[in-house]
């Protein structure tokens, strides 16, 4: 949408929800994810100045995904559970032809490398691992029975391993998209199919819980964002994904580059998380590295097929080897 359309609709929407006619200062689209549009704005609403974020689907007429439809409610449930997230303010209505909602803007950075290396973030690096463990435990404790609206989120087939669908999905993508063979990925797929976990827990999984989707400042974690991949599944999936090598951004510790495994597990359990099953964490970490490896191939394919002819996209194809290297290490550690 263009700026004028967003401003006109937002004016109407804020008036309806607050009774004030907003005076806007600075309405601008933020760069980033191709998935959704994110706009930042300041609006004077009577005596209150609202620093807000407007999130919307990019195209009208296309059916939105369940987590997108529910993003407002997911944030609200997470906040009510005590997780550190941006405050959701109002869910969208018919004001725009696309699904949207408004949340309070959280000041802070999201770039992974700056957290790992920034001198000003020394204190943040100390406390963020515990904050991430606690917030994740609180997300995983959200009671399914209290949220019938979340039943439309993707869920594993009853009785089947919650991992099977994920592994099959990325194997299919790999076979469709990769122009070249990758024997290391074959070893990894083989291992994953032979070690599919089948835990009894089915919790609300964030689905993309990793450095890059956390807003932070010098005082620590400020907001967990990007809930577009939320689903029902194995709680260990989020923990394993957080440990994937690429999300360490060069940091020398496994959890988000700044935390060790055991303290994270202890913090997570102490905050009421599910019992940590180290084998399952390893399964999901190994799967996560493979998943990221497949994604590097799909991104490079955007270049090969002419959809995005930038040197950046092309170069991502040369990062696949990093995931192969990590997969070999993890396979060896798993005892081959």
């Amino acid at each position: 949408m263009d700026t004028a359309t967003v401003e006109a609709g937002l004016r109407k929407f804020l008036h309806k929800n607050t009774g004030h006619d907003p005076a806007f200062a600075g309405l601008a689209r933020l760069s980033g994810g191709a998935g959704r549009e994110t706009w930042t704005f300041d609006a004077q609403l009577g005596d209150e100045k609202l620093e807000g974020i407007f999130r919307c689907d990019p195209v009208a007429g296309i059916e939105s995904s369940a987590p997108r439809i529910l993003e407002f409610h997911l944030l609200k449930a997470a906040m009510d559970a005590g997780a550190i997230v941006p405050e959701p303010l109002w869910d969208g209505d018919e004001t725009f032809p696309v699904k949207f909602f408004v949340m309070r803007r959280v000041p802070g950075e999201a770039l992974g490398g700056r957290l790992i290396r920034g001198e000003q973030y020394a204190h943040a690096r100390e406390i963020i691992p515990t904050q991430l463990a606690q917030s994740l435990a609180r997300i995983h404790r959200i009671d399914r029975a209290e949220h019938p609206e979340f039943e439309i989120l993707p869920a594993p087939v009853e009785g089947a391993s919650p991992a099977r669908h994920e592994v099959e999905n990325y194997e299919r993508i790999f076979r469709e998209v990769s122009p070249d063979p990758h024997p290391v990925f074959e070893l990894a797929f083989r291992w994953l199919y032979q070690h599919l976990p089948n835990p009894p827990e089915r919790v609300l999984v964030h689905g993309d819980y990793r450095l890059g989707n956390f807003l932070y400042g010098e005082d620590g974690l400020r907001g967990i964002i990007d809930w577009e991949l939320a689903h029902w599944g194995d709680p260990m999936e989020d923990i394993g994904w957080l440990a994937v090598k690429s999300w360490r951004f060069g940091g020398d510790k496994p959890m988000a580059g700044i935390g060790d495994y055991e303290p994270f597990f202890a913090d997570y359990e102490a905050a009421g998380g599910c019992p940590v099953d180290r084998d399952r964490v390893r399964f999901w970490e190994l799967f996560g590295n493979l998943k990221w490896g497949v994604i590097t191939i799909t991104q490079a394919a955007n270049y090969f097929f002419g959809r995005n002819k930038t040197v950046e996209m092309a170069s991502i194809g040369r990062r696949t080897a990093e995931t192969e290297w990590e997969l070999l290490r993890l396979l060896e550690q798993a005892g081959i």
Partner: protein
Amino acid sequence: MQDRPTIDELLEAVAGYLRDDVMVNTTGRTNFHGRVAMNAVEMLRREISTIEDHYAREWDGLDHLLGVEPMPPYLAAMRESLLARNRSLSTRIREGDADSGDFRHQVVNHLRKVIHDKLVVSNPALAAEG
């Protein structure tokens, strides 16, 4: 045969331009892509200087795993043949031949060498770690 500059000398000049002119005088997206382009050119220099060794090593490793085959005389043909042999190896892994035992051990050792060679080109800092 071309006159000098050699391939490496010309690529060095391109990388230098990207580093000392483009990156110094730009910001934002152009600066970022300038850096990515410089890294890509430096990667090509490493690839060109190692490609014959790396292809030969991968071929030898696959000879050991899949049986000896004559090595194609040209690099382009070599790439196609390596892809075909890696497809064969992939099939063997999918069929369970490398699930355990000696063959698994040999496959993993071979792949560790091959991936390390890839990193020497694409990410020398990571290759130096292990």
